[in-house]
């Protein structure tokens, strides 16, 4: 079957989709967007977290056919998504080519401004919250959404919001630091 939906602000279509396929498979294998990671395929690890109509979900548990006509944001579009949110201006979106070629270049600017990073991505780099990086995309999408809802989270809020994301490397402390850093920078307005 064919699926038409919006990915990172742009209309995309995927052809020859098998009816039992997951959104995660469509993103990675049909659209060439491997940012959302595939680890458990059973909702346990959160490394496939994307936003579906704004809501964080495990892409491995959404059937491809369920996203027809709906809106998906992946880690590849997070920087652009954050930029639009802070400026509140016209949607540019991230094209498939840009998304496929996207790389995490940090910048000197602490908000990621000018570079290709959202504030939360920059904070993960600055806090040393990335080791092997496999869990990072899912954590970034989940953390970004929490900060959008709750700009001033306490530690319990952060733990709760990230409780569906597993990391085997960092022991979570640096990840907590990164989210606190992103929140602090936002409240300082830098």
């Amino acid at each position, binding site marked *: *079957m064919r699926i038409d939906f919006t990915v990172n602000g742009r209309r995309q279509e995927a052809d020859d989709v*098998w*009816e*039992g396929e*997951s959104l995660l498979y469509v993103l990675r294998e049909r659209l060439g967007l491997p940012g959302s990671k595939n680890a458990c*395929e*059973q*909702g*346990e690890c*959160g490394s496939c*977290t994307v936003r579906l109509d704004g*809501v*964080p*979900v*495990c892409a*491995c*548990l*959404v*059937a491809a*056919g*369920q996203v*027809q006509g709906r809106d998906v944001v992946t880690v590849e579009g997070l920087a652009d998504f954050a930029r639009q949110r802070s400026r509140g201006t016209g949607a540019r979106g991230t094209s498939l080519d840009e998304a496929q070629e996207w790389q995490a270049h940090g910048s000197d600017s602490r908000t990621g401004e000018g570079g290709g990073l959202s504030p939360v991505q920059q904070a993960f780099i600055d806090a040393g919250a990335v080791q092997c990086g496999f869990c990072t995309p899912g954590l970034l999408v*989940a953390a970004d959404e929490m900060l959008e809802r709750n700009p001033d989270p306490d530690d319990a809020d952060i733990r*709760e*919001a990230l*409780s*569906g*994301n597993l990391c085997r490397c960092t022991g979570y402390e640096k990840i907590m630091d990164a989210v606190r850093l992103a929140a602090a920078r936002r409240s300082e307005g830098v």
Partner: protein
Amino acid sequence: MDFLRPASWEEALAAKAEHPAAVPIAGGTDVMVEINFDHRRPEYLMDLNRIRDLEEWEVGADSVRLGASVPYSRIMEHLRAELPGLALAAHTVASPQIRNRGGVGGNLGTASPAGDAHPALLAAGAEVEAESVRGSRRIPIDAFYTGVKRNALAPDELIRAVHIRKADGPQQFSKVGTRNAMVIAVCAFGLALHPETRTVRTGIGSAAPTPVRARAAEEFLDAALEEGGFWDSGKVITPSLAKRFADLCAAACNPIDDVRGTAGYRRHAVGVMARRTLTWTWESYRGARRTTEGAA
């Protein structure tokens, strides 16, 4: 495999009548795991996400009509006052990502003895609104669970909503697992005080082939509270009374040994949860009585 996308409830009923083997998919948090792991290859998958009514709820005078696909995160956020037991249970399900998708309709569809909504529904009192092209019926929650992962739905029926009695007193939910997030219950317990009818209801999860109520324990406690004048006086429940109640709750279990725990452990843990949830709810009942009396 065929993917059916009914745009309305009527279309969904018609599709289910035409293809009774079609597997509905709401949040997909049970169905997709089975498909990803090749445990299930349905001929038809039927998406319910386009039927927006299923994500709505109405608060009535005595009950809440909860659409089958209302995700757990909405229940936690919006129905904590009306359905405190279910809201607590919802909060223990998996993780935010899963709670954003999964809901009570899917929990009932799967009818796992470990489903967290079940003890809360049994304790609160609920009816499942099932419908097919043949008509609509209300299935009392006590009659809904018919076996391990089996329910009372006919092959052509879908769950439209669940009617859950609004809380008329304190409710609690307790669950044993290895950590807070992402845990399937080793066993779980729901308890609701119903001061209006002077009754107590329970629900036990993961300690029998189906979710069950501890009926003998309920009957014992109802009689003891009545005889001792506890509802009127609001006095403290005696330890011996609480212990007898806990023992009867443990006796209502028919658990198995599995990787998550032994039968003996489950029986013991259900007793502990029964005693604690009774104490917690009774304390808040007493607290509420004191406040109303103080105001009067």
